[in-house]
């Protein structure tokens, strides 16, 4: 290992994961990319090495395989300085309403898996006395909406978990960041109608995450416009909100 700082990106092959890895590598971090399919991670690791002359390793990680988590963490070549979880699954709301398996997968991918793995890292970081944990949650978790409440409720749980973890860890020198990206133009949102002024590209999210880690921010909306939008959405009385279809 080098004397550089290191970051572990869980969900490293997603668009936001790739952008986050690039932002940190550009900032001088060595990178560990973790994902289900290590074959697709290798070209991205090679990209980081070629561009930024940093070390880049790849690791197999499946967010649904919670039984493997303890071995995953103890088997790491080195405990990173920063861990970022980008893992998530949007799924399809219509299917999730009638298909319990699909609903379960959405809930586990967005809440159970990310929360459990970050909880394990919190223990390791607290034992070491430092470290930063980043959870990519969603504005969808700020209030359950008709169009995506299965996904949104899992993200709400994840946001609450991160909030508690932050409070628990802050006295032990470990910082927790909650990231709410809003609309991002990625594979996950391909084909969706996104509202232009509220939509950003993945590299903007990667830079925002690095920036949040550097300044030890607690909760960030990648775009301030989303902070305002969600403030309004959260303030609507339920009697009105329940009539909205979005």
């Amino acid at each position, binding site marked *: 290992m080098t004397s550089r700082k290191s970051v572990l990106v869980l969900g490293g092959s997603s668009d936001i994961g790739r952008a986050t890895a690039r932002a940190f590598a*550009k900032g001088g971090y060595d990178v560990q990319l973790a994902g289900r399919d290590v074959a697709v991670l290798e*070209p991205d690791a*090679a*990209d980081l090495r*070629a*561009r*930024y*002359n940093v070390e880049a390793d790849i690791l197999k990680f499946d967010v649904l395989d919670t039984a493997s988590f303890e071995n995953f963490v103890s088997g790491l070549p080195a405990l990173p300085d920063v861990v970022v979880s980008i893992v998530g699954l949007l799924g399809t709301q219509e299917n999730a309403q009638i298909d319990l398996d699909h609903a379960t997968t959405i809930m586990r991918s967005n809440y159970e898996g990310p929360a459990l793995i970050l909880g394990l890292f919190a223990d390791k970081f607290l034992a070491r006395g430092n470290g930063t944990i980043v959870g990519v949650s969603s504005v969808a978790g700020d209030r359950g909406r008709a169009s995506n409440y299965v996904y949104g409720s899992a993200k709400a749980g994840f946001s609450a978990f991160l909030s508690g973890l932050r409070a628990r860890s802050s006295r032990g020198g470990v910082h927790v960041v909650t990231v709410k990206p809003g609309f991002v133009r990625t*594979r996950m949102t*391909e084909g969706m109608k996104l509202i232009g002024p509220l939509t950003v590209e993945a590299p903007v999210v990667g830079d925002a995450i690095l920036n949040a880690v550097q300044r030890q921010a607690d909760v960030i909306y990648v775009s301030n416009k989303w902070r305002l939008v969600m403030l309004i959405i959260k303030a609507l009385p339920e009697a009105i909100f329940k009539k909205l279809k979005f």
Partner: protein
Amino acid sequence: MTLVSGWGRFPVVDTDVLRPRSFAAVGEAVAGAAGTVARGNGRAYGDAGIGASRTIAMTGFDRVRSFDPATGRLRLEAGVLLSDLIDTFGPRGFLPFVVPGTRFVSVGGAIAADVHGKNHHCEGGFGRYVDSILLRTGEGETIEASREQNSDAFFATIGGMGLTGVILEATMRLRPVETGWIRERVVSTSDLDAAMRALEAGDSATYSVAWIDCVARGSELGRSLIYLGEHARASELPDGADAFPLGKDPGLAVPVDLPSITLNRYSIRAFNELYYRMGARRAGTSHVVSLYPYFFPLDSISDWNRIYGRRGFLQHQCVIPEHGARDVLGDILDRVTRRGDASFLAVLKKLGQGDGILSFPMPGYTLALDFPMKGDILNFLDEIDRLVVAAGGRLYLAKDARQSHATFEAGYPALQRFKAIRKSLDPAGKIRSKLSQRLFDEVQP
């Protein structure tokens, strides 16, 4: 279906846009339609980056495969943007050898258009620094093409407007530089003769380009500011300057389509007059500027194409062989200044020999002019084209949205050879763009 257009926003075409995530998926996208072309960052002005029926968006392929700092040799996917290369490798002391007037183009697009920069007269075009290309042909093969191997495919792909297949990856060389700064010298000239003499004298400069005042008439016709440039050495930087100034995101933006009245003969006249006077004040001195304003002055205003309004604009870029260029350029400029609606992007520069079979450059002078898409502009440009053809010149395909079949054939005598190579790579005609349909496909769908 999605409405797609080039940078000039004319024409606007309904096409399927696919965003494959693997090279295998690119192959399926090509095989599955009659008439596909790859699209990079959409900076070709006309219809070059729009498929006859299907368009493959390539910007997701943005990985660097390997880089050797000892040689500057780089292997990368074709969707990497030059802006990304500059920001990533500039601080490490390397820049692309050739950059066009915008850095927001993909490597695949830069190869396909064999783009030129301000150094074409002495260093050639983008293709000269490409050693090898990984190409997915219309026939379904994936081949590596270089000067030694599959050389026909290689030279047809350099400047081939994406019509030999989908460029997947490339190996290219970067230029070692000490800094990200350019030592610039501005020369102000009073008319076209003086401008051409100054460009001629600037042949020894690595970079040279002339901005022409296309409002000035009569004895001032063709008065210009000539920008000469060299890469600045570290010792030439002002004290405390960063050796590599990182490019900021565009600070200004044109958020909406401006009404087409914004650009009228009065605003254009005022702009040209002001620009000339401000430039002339700096003339004669030598100073150091960041590479970003030197190479990419318009990149600092994002979406500047919207200044022309909803109907879009046309860029007319021709090259005229050196012999006799003075008279033809004078004739064109005279007609343009009498019209009065050519706007702020009138650029004159010397070109050298092109490298690809269909590359635009030839030894001579290239003139680029922007016109709003309205009125009788199409007829006017047809007249200009007749002057270009009569002089043995041609038009740049990356800028073109409207030239005629006849103008194109007259300008590109190597077309038959290009067609034969294309046929061997793609016998069923899978790779077709709106541009190839307009200019030379035999089979119309």
